């Protein structure tokens, strides 16, 4: 009895396809798909979130009972702190008199005595100003411009829209692909929530509302671009090339913002020249 098995050729049961190439193509497709879905969902979520009444937004923030002062390590008994926070709130109410504020919307300005170059608006009508930003303000007009810009964000419901969009997109995407699945591993969901900030469109709209408020408050727009002019002439604070910056960052470039102010002034016959009010001594150490 003699039999012999003939060996079949190698690779009959195995596809001759490069796994690395397959990985690249499929991985890129998934990322593009996820990005498109993320954008669609954040747009839809952001759009829907604007329908949440401001009063509900305030209630939710109150229910969280966040002590902003404690969180930001502010010394609330410090007379300088009290004085500066009051001065900021006074400026806010002066600016608000010249803005279209919906009924029932209250803005609370928080002063933060930290050397951080920042000011931002968040849920529930809370606006934050850091000393590091105020230090660089060349005039009250420039500060009023930033103040009106942040208040405009609240009026346009940008904080809730940004958060609503980010949360909707994240929840929808993780429901679709599963947070622990292969795609879930590629997308770091908590990071995505964190990146849900204001879009450039929101920033431009806030700028437009702010410049109109400043013009109405002072009778001219001189000095409103003070901060941006200063930043534009000192571009050493970043190593990112201009073209990349204007594409990546959400805030319009300083030079673009100055031009937008001038353009708005020309279109509306606002005065570009006028007496600039100096910054109150309260803010100077």
């Amino acid at each position, binding site marked *: 009895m003699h039999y012999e098995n003939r060996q079949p050729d190698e690779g009959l*049961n*195995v596809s001759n*396809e490069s796994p690395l190439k397959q*990985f690249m193509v*499929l991985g890129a497709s998934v990322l593009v798909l996820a990005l498109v879905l993320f954008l669609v969902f954040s747009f839809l979520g952001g759009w829907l979130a604007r329908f949440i009444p401001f009063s509900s937004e305030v209630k939710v923030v109150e229910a969280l009972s966040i002590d902003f002062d404690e969180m930001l390590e502010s010394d609330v008994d410090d007379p300088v702190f009290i004085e500066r926070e009051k001065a900021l709130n006074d400026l806010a109410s002066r600016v608000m008199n010249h803005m279209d504020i919906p009924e029932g919307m209250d803005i609370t300005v928080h002063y933060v005595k930290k050397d951080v170059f920042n000011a931002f608006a968040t849920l529930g009508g809370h606006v934050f100003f850091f000393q590091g930003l105020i230090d660089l303000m060349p005039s009250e007009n420039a500060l009023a411009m930033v103040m009106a810009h942040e208040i405009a964000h609240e009026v346009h419901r940008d904080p809730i829209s940004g958060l609503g969009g980010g949360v909707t997109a994240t929840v929808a995407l993780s429901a679709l692909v599963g947070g622990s699945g292969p795609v879930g591993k590629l997308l*770091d969901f908590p990071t995505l929530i964190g990146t849900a900030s204001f879009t450039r469109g929101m920033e431009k709209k806030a700028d437009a509302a702010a410049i109109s408020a400043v013009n109405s408050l002072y009778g001219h727009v001189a000095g409103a671009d003070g901060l941006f002019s200063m930043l534009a002439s000192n571009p050493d604070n970043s190593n990112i090339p201009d073209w990349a910056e204007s594409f990546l960052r959400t805030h319009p470039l300083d030079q673009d913002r100055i031009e937008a102010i001038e353009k708005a002034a020309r279109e509306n016959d606002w005065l570009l020249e006028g007496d600039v009010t100096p910054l109150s001594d309260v803010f100077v150490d």
Partner: protein
Amino acid sequence: MSNLIVFCILLLLGLVIGKFAEKKHLKSIVKREHQLNALPAIASRYPPTGENVGPHQQLLVTGNVVIASDYFKTFLAGLINIFGGRVTPFESLLDRGRREALLRMKSSANAVNAEYIFNVKYQTATIQQKGNGAIEVLAYGTALIPTQQVKA
């Protein structure tokens, strides 16, 4: 961010080491297949008949292997699951599993001086569904051992 770094390292390890291990395994499979080539393993349910088939003893021979996927293969298979198509990364894995199981079965038949294995069958089972996944492949058949040899 650290999650992403760990993920990329695992993916790279899976790709590099997994590919190396697979190549090494395949090389060894081909070598042993040639060594055991003279021992026929046939799927037919019936033993050979004919004048020159002498008296035989029958024995169940089995070959069993548990083989695991690597991180890269599993991830790539997950991606393919979204778009559909042949799950190519698992094709080579299963091919290796089947051939290794058959070789082990033949080795155990060879050890008892069997001349022929008939009624060869395969069975597979998933033994680890979470994580990267591992499968068991079992090959079994009936070995024919010439009786004279058994006596000797």
